[in-house]
């Protein structure tokens, strides 16, 4: 079994060749710059190639979606980012967008339309669920047999956009029997990073939100805590480290689970 290097297609290059890919993979700032989430982007790219998906990324033409700026109250900056991105996306005639970031998913799907950007968004959990449903991905052996797995709902995927079932379906199709936390789906507790919290000191309290959530997950004695959001990933990874469990508990994204199952 050899290894092949993947050349990630960039929109501008394809466009120059007169090609228009079916999907745009929106990487997002975290997917491009956060060390941990870069691995998720890479895992997802492997899956896209495994599936022979006709896609491209914007590469250096992509800029921050502005989601954090908007939620932190800087509407001016949000709209500058949004209008700039919309101009780029529209110039390539982009229609279908897939992203691994629920925050960008929410902003591009629900908010860019106010500013002239109308796209069909799929979060990677929805995309993967659809691929599995359409029979494009099949699994042989149960790679995660015997592992205790729980799933943390990202707020911007779950409550914000009601995507609760698709990530769970993906895990189920991997042969995983999810052990749910007491607060799950629409009752899920935030990881603590939303609304700009990721980038600032927490206000005075008696506990950090990410510790509260990590403890809830830890109570299940899991081997893997799965999530589907870069911010949740950061917070829960920190929580696991705080509890000195980083050797026994893994924090993985849905895409990584699937790529690992497929042996990519």
């Amino acid at each position, binding site marked *: *079994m*050899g*290894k*092949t*290097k*993947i050349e*990630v297609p*960039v929109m501008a290059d394809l466009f120059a060749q007169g090609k228009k890919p079916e999907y745009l993979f929106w*990487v997002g*700032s975290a*997917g*491009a*710059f*956060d060390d941990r989430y*870069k691995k998720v982007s*890479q895992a997802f790219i*492997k899956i896209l*190639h495994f599936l022979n998906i006709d896609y491209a*990324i914007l*590469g*250096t033409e*992509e800029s*921050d979606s502005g989601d954090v*700026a908007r*939620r*932190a*109250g*800087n*509407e*001016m*900056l949000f*709209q*500058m*980012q949004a*209008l700039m991105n919309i101009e780029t996306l529209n110039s390539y005639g982009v229609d279908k967008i897939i992203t691994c970031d629920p925050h960008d998913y*929410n902003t591009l799907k*629900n*908010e860019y339309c*106010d500013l002239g950007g109308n796209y069909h968004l799929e979060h990677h959990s929805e995309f993967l669920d659809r691929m599995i449903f359409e029979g494009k991905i099949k699994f042989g052996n149960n790679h995660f047999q015997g592992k205790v797995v729980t799933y943390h709902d990202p*707020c911007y995927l779950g*409550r*914000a*956009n009601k995507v609760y079932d698709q990530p769970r379906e993906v895990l189920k199709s991997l042969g995983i029997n999810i052990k749910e936390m007491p607060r799950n789906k629409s009752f899920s*507790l*935030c990881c*603590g*990073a939303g*609304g*700009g*919290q990721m*980038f*600032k*000191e*927490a*206000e*005075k*309290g008696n506990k950090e*939100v990410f510790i*509260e959530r990590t403890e809830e997950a830890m109570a299940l004695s899991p081997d893997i805590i799965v999530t589907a959001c870069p911010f949740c990933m950061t917070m829960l990874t920190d929580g696991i480290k705080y509890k000195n469990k980083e050797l026994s508990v893994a924090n993985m994204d849905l895409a990584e689970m699937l790529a690992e199952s497929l*042996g990519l």
Partner: protein
Amino acid sequence: MKQILFLISMLITLGVFAWTASKIKSYFNLLKPAFPIKDISERIKLTLNVAFGQSKILRRPVIGFIHALVWWGFIVILFGSIEMIIDGLFGTERVLSIFGYFYNFIIAAGDIFGLVIAVAISIFLIRRNIIKVKRFEGIEMKKISHQDANIALLIIFFLMISLLGMNTFYQVKVIQQGGEMLGIFPISHFLVSTFIGLSEHTVSILHEANWWTHILLIFLFANILPYSKHFHVFMSVPNVFLSRLKPLGYIDNMPNITQEVKLMMNPNAIISEVDNNSMERFGMKDVEDGNWKNYLDSLACTQCGRCTSVCPANITGKLLSPRKLMIDFRARMKEKAPKLVKDKNFDDNKSYLGDYISEEEIWACTLCNACAQECPINMNHPNLIVEMRRYLVMEQAMAPSGLNAVFQNIENNGAPWQFAQADRLNWAKDIYIKQ
């Protein structure tokens, strides 16, 4: 005589209510538009589901079901109240019995609900005053909140007792004096034997006393409600019907900013109708920067605290409590709106943000939408948070330092972190797939 007394008390009730309603309407006029009310069929579906079906309060199945029983009971008993008003005005007795089987069914259901609600209200009183459920406590829960709750609960309790009393003595009266028994009374039926020995005169008086107690309590209740947190009884169904229909993750666009940004990006753009007269404030500093939905939310809020009980910031001991946003919005409106109606430039050097809600509360929010998700009547607390952040950031340049750094980074290099835009593709350089 009875008819005249009834007419007078009803006119007083309606008069006071109309006066209150017109005041509240003038307060709504001070506020900004929220969203156009379209998609009526979707709104009707939502109202049937969330309001009449109680789908959101049933997220806590046990106590939610008890609330649902009270609410469904109210609807049934309302039929009898309408009958009482007709009877009172025209001197008839149980006039709606012309509906036959339907009447029997509704009256029977009302009789049962009378007891069910009385029991439910007792449970609510015990939870609030004896068990002291944690959800009913918090910095925003002042003595007046509990007083309000207890007054409303006691009025409802006595409404039910008088309903059952009225039904009981009606039956005794019919048995003693003869005549057709109108309606079926599965619960109060059992009380008849207790009172059958009383004189006809006493029974008549007791029947009248219960009848009057019941209707006058309704009249009183109707006029207390708009001044208490139990305005909920009137405002919650409209509040659900007028819900924001967007996904919870959506934040309202600011068209006035779009105009400025477009000008900045393309100075040659011709912007039509630039309205220079309205130097509108960005975001929300005080209540008049809010929209009618914010106020409606605050009027419909009955301070159940489900929002606060699921708030990650509140759970971890931060100052933020979503319920407080609503209570304080209403309190500030109560303080400022009457003065603003008289003088639109009124200023008392106080504001919602600052004197009621602190920056510490505003910045503790994770915008996870758990509060909005949990609210049984679809209030939107995050909207208030975002609007106040907009004011702090765009008018005052007062964001926490971490966020200021993020703004700078996004502006300079298109990412929240200090990485060069040119490096945006680095992650994609060495990806290998096994084949």
